[in-house]
Structures are given as C-alpha cells and as structure tokens.
C-alpha cells in the first residue's frame, strides 16, 4: 500500500496547503457538527418536554350536558316562577380510579374545593377584592355559600400546577401528601400565618358556611408562599390569595357536607407520554358516563414540541446544506489540486500505477486532512452550536401560546389542580405557562461518529467528483507536452 506513504509524504511536504485544507474542512465540519448538535439537542429537548412539560387530563362534571338538561327542564316547566337550576354531578372517585388504571396515567390529583369562615384567626384583607366570595375548581361552588377562607382540597400539593410550576413554594414544614387523607392537616399561606402569628404545629379553627355550620379545628403542617402572580385569576369577588388553605380533599369534602364523601370537583391525571394523550382520553371516555367529561391539556408539551420541531427542521437543513456545499467546495479544491498535480499523476501512470490507487492516494490525503478537521470541529462545534442553537430557540419561542382549557365546561375547573376562580358559570380562559425550551448542546461520541460519517461521505464524494480527471488523464499528453 505504497499510496499511503505517498499520501503522507505529500501532506507533510506541502504543509501550507495541508493547513489551508484543514482550515477549510474544519469550517465545513464545524457547521455540520453544529447542525447535528442542534438537531440532537432538539430531539432531546422534545423528549425532556414529554417529561417536564407533560400533559394532563381532567375528569370533571359535564357542564354542557348539565346546561342541556337545565334548558330542557326549563322549556318543559309550566311554572314561570320556578327558575331552572344547574345541577352538576360531582365526580365519583371510583370512576377516577378506573381511569387511573390506564397504562398512560402516571398519577392523579383529586381536587375538591370549598370555603369556610375564619374563627380563630383573621383573614388577610385585600384592597382590591370585594371579599368573601370564591369558587372552586369545576364550578362546584354554584350550590354552596361562600366563606372568607378558600379551602383547596387536594391529594398532594406537589401534584398541583401551582406548586409544580413553583408559583407557590413550601417555606416551612411540608405540603399536603396522600398520607394526609382523612386528617385535618392544612398548609396555610405565609402572609396569613405571619398576620396571625401561626406556625407549623399550631391549630386554627374555622366555621362551615352551610349546614350545621360546625366549627372545624385544623392543624398546620406547612406554610407556603404564594407568588404575586397567583392572584391573576382572582376576580373582583374573590378572596385574597393569601386566604387559600390547602388540605386533603377528604377535609374539603367533610366541610362541604356528607353527601360529598367519595367525590371530587375534578380529578387531574398526569399523563406519562404526552404524545399519546388523545388515545388515553379516548380510552378514558369509555370508562365514564355522559355526566362527566374528560378534558386534556398538553399545551405546554405541544408548545415546546412545536418550537423544537422548528429547531430540528432548521438544524436538518443546516446539516444537509452545509454537507452539500462542503462537498462542492472540497470537490472544487480537489479538482484544482489534481489539475496542478497532473504531472505527478502522469509519472505514476508511466510507472504502471493503477488509476484506482492514484484516486486512493488523493482520498487518503483528504482523509488525513478530514481526521484533523474532525478533531478541530469537535472542539469548536459546541461553541458554534451553542450560539446558533440559542439564536434559533429565541426565534422559535417568541410566540406566546394561549390555550383554552375549558372544552365543554363553561366555568369549568382548571386542569392540574390550579386554584379555582370566579363565581358560578364563569367562563375561564387561562394562559398556560410554558417552560422555555433549553437546548443543551453537548458533543457526544455518537455526534462525533455521525460527524465522522459526514466527513467521510463529503471526502469520498468530493474525491469521486474530482477523480474523473484522473480517470480520463492521458499520460502521454501530460508527460510529452
């Protein structure tokens, strides 16, 4: 394999030309690698979005069906004095359990909200609020009186979007967990705690707003801090967000009355694979009656996915455009190189060297150049990828995504256990907070292998294009010209 030695001797003897070739190849491969890195980072970010952004499915009363029933009864009613009443059926936990058994369900959060009046403490008064009136998720409060303290019953605070999105944070003690079921443990807001000198371990009492108006004694197990934006959904009739107390849904049901035992305003299911949320909803709908409805919220995932799809598509274009342009550039360089080395080729042919070995010599020379270029591109590709990637992401995430989560549920609850809002029948549109997709550009062995593949392909193609000259070259014309 004498052509290896010839290739090395040529590369070594013509250092200046070799360095220039290395620089050109490095620039080409650096952009190829940047494209590859952005593409793989976008794929990874989309995967991460599946886990982080996630998607939820909410089981709640079917308000559309309830309205329909109400309007039918009002048209058939002869009495003009009796007003039609919207009757919503609370979600049975037994139905929720059936859905929870579906394969794509990671976990679920039961939400049951109510209100009570403060007894052993003073509520935080707000300057803008009209005080005292709030609604729970799912609009279930339409038939109950309102108190000055909002009680959000949940399975676990960590499963609510308020806490998982860090809009609220536990600052002392702990949050509500599944083990708090059938207990009177609560988590109160920091401002309410400091106003009443309450801390973890203390007890407080409030009074039910309906029925026997019993006094309920609860134990504080944690204190949370709500961010200022958490009151964004509060209307003029809502209570100050600091007056919201988190408890187990069983406590909320107890306060609401005995008929609410084993029910919930809504149940939010966290879906394992957001890409399959529609199929899961379809399967879930088969398990419930028409009195309930299942709504989905995968806006966060879709938003991240859409922007990552854009980035991935653009990265693919970069890879292919640079690869094609690089092949053409390198082919032109090799063609020029071969033209200036036609005497050498002629002498090789006059010595009886096979033409394929001459092509192999040029290929080996370019291969040596490409190997060094891959190493340089590997070092610099991450930097270029980072710059290009962050630019692409910032461009693709400028569009704010606003989603309506109220499919078929006027005034319906907010999936994910977000705090309830407004009065009865309140139509609610929420702006979903989407996490900014972050491209983590890192050069892995796979990326380098892929880059090596591209480098080889570019070298091979450019040599093949240029070798037409070698194959056609007539040594007599060159050597005796």
């Amino acid at each position, binding site marked *: 394999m*004498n052509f290896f030695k010839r290739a090395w001797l040529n590369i070594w003897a013509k250092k200046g030309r070799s360095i220039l070739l290395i620089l050109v190849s490095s620039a080409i491969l650096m952009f190829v690698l940047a494209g590859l890195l952005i593409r793989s980072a976008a794929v990874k970010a989309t995967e991460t979005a599946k886990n982080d952004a996630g998607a939820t499915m909410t089981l709640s009363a079917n308000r559309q069906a309830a309205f329909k029933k109400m309007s039918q009864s009002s048209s058939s009613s002869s009495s003009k004095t009796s007003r039609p009443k919207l009757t919503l059926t609370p979600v049975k936990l037994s139905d929720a359990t059936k859905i929870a058994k579906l394969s794509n369900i990671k976990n679920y959060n039961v939400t049951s909200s109510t209100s009570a009046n403060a007894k052993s403490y003073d509520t935080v008064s707000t300057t803008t609020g009209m005080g005292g009136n709030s609604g729970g998720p799912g609009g279930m409060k339409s038939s109950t009186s309102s108190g000055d303290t909002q009680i959000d019953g949940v399975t676990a605070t960590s499963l609510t979007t308020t806490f998982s999105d860090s809009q609220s944070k536990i600052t002392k003690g702990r949050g509500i967990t599944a083990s708090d079921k059938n207990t009177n443990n609560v988590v109160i807001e920091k401002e309410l705690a400091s106003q009443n000198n309450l801390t973890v371990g203390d007890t407080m009492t409030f009074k039910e707003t309906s029925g026997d108006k019993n006094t309920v004694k609860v134990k504080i197990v944690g204190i949370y801090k709500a961010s200022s934006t958490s009151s964004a959904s509060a209307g003029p009739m809502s209570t100050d967000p600091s007056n919201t107390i988190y408890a187990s849904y069983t406590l909320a049901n107890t306060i609401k009355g005995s008929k609410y035992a084993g029910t919930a305003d809504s149940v939010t299911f966290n879906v394992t694979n957001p890409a399959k949320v529609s199929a899961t909803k379809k399967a879930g709908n088969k398990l419930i009656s028409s009195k309930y409805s299942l709504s989905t919220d995968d806006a966060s995932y879709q938003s991240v996915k859409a922007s990552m799809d854009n980035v991935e598509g653009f990265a693919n274009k970069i890879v292919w455009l640079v690869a094609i342009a690089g092949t053409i550039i390198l082919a032109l360089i090799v063609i020029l190189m071969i033209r200036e080395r036609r005497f050498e080729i002629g002498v090789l042919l006059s010595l009886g060297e096979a033409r394929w070995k001459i092509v192999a010599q040029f290929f080996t020379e370019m291969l040596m150049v490409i190997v060094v270029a891959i190493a340089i591109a590997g070092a610099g590709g991450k930097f270029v990828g980072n710059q290009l990637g962050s630019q692409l992401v910032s461009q693709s995430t400028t569009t704010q995504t606003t989603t309506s989560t109220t499919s078929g549920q006027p005034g319906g609850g907010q999936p994910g256990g977000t705090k309830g809002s407004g009065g009865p029948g309140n139509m609610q549109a929420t702006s979903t907070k989407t996490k900014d997709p972050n491209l983590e550009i890192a050069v892995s062995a796979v990326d380098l292998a892929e880059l090596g593949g591209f480098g080889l392909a570019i070298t091979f193609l450019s040599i093949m294009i240029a070798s037409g000259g070698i194959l056609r070259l007539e040594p007599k014309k060159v050597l005796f010209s």
Partner: protein
Amino acid sequence: MLKTQDLGYWYQDKTQPLFQGINLTFESGKSYAILGHSGTGKTTFLSLIAGLDKPKEGDILLGDQSLKQIGLTNYRRHDVAIVFQAYNLFAYMSPMNNLLTAMAITEAKHAGDRAYAKQILNDLGIGDDLIDRNVQHLSGGQQQRVAIARTMCCDARLVVADEPTGNLDEDNTKAVIDQFQRIAHEQNKCVIIVTHEPDVAAQCDHQYRLENKQFTELA
C-alpha cells in the same frame, strides 16, 4: 527483444500518418538513438514503445508477446522505464523516496531496499548529503541522474528516454549518456533514446533517423 510490426500512427487524418509500416527490432544490451527534426513523430514513436499510447495500426511485440496481450499498465509496470526531458520526479519527495516509490510501484525485486537504492544513487554521483533532500533543491543534472537512477532500480528490461540531455550542459550530457551506455552494456538492458542532438546519438550503438514517415538506420 522489442519488435515493431507494420507500426503506423496518425492523429486526425489517416491519409497523413506520422509514420507507417515501421518494422524495427531493438535488442537487449544495446543502445539506440532516434534522431529527427521536430514534428517528425519521434516522441510519438517513443510513447508507443513506452506503452503510453496505442498504435493506430500494426503491433509492438515484447519477445513474442503483443503489448495488447500484456496490457499497457502491466507493460509499463514491469517491462519499461522512462526518462523524460523534464525529469518528472515526484517533487515532494527526496531522491531516496523517488527510488523507493518507483521500486514499490513496479514491484521490483529490491523494493523497499534502501541500501540498494542508496548504492545506485551514490554510483550516479548523488552523495549521502543529497539523498534525503527534496529533489527540487537539486540541480538539473542531479535531477536527471536521479531520474536515471529511478530506471536503474526497477527491473525493467527496456529503458526509453525522451531528450534526456535537453536541459543539461555539456559535462552533464556526457555523464548521462555514459550512464545510459552502462545500463545497456553492463545491465544488459535495451536503451532507446530520442534526441535531436547528433553528438548524443553518435555515442549510441545504433542510430535511426525518422524522416518522411520512415526510419532509416544511419551508418
């Protein structure tokens, strides 16, 4: 050793051949000079017997085998060595690597033998201080001697040279021709030199003049 049978060649027009019906025999251990004015076709004739082109008519035989049967690439690799007026060495190599490369390509029996290549170079006046220097740093005479050394290190039975002294001064010309004579007589090879210099031709064993499309042997 090498015979041409009714050899003919033309470029565009068959009716205007450079030469036609050429029947010559070249023997081992002898040197031949081919003289002629510019444009008579002597270099074309050389390219045919060097296996760099195919005859338009007739045949060339090495022993009793046609070059068509041997294959031009095979023939160039094993049977013929060429010296050019412009030396045509590998510019990015040293004299030593030029020889080693030629020996490797032609699959010479001494392929890879540095000592053998060094001996040949030393014999031709390329000293130890020059054998690993880039050939571009050598004088014209030295480069031509390296080109001759390249033909000597290979096992080719036929050595053809196209105006090998065209770029050399009188002293170097004499040295180069002496070397070709040694190749023919001492190594029992057939040496064919194309030249337009009668003085150079006069030193060869046989002289042919290409004139009016025919070869004529000079007395």
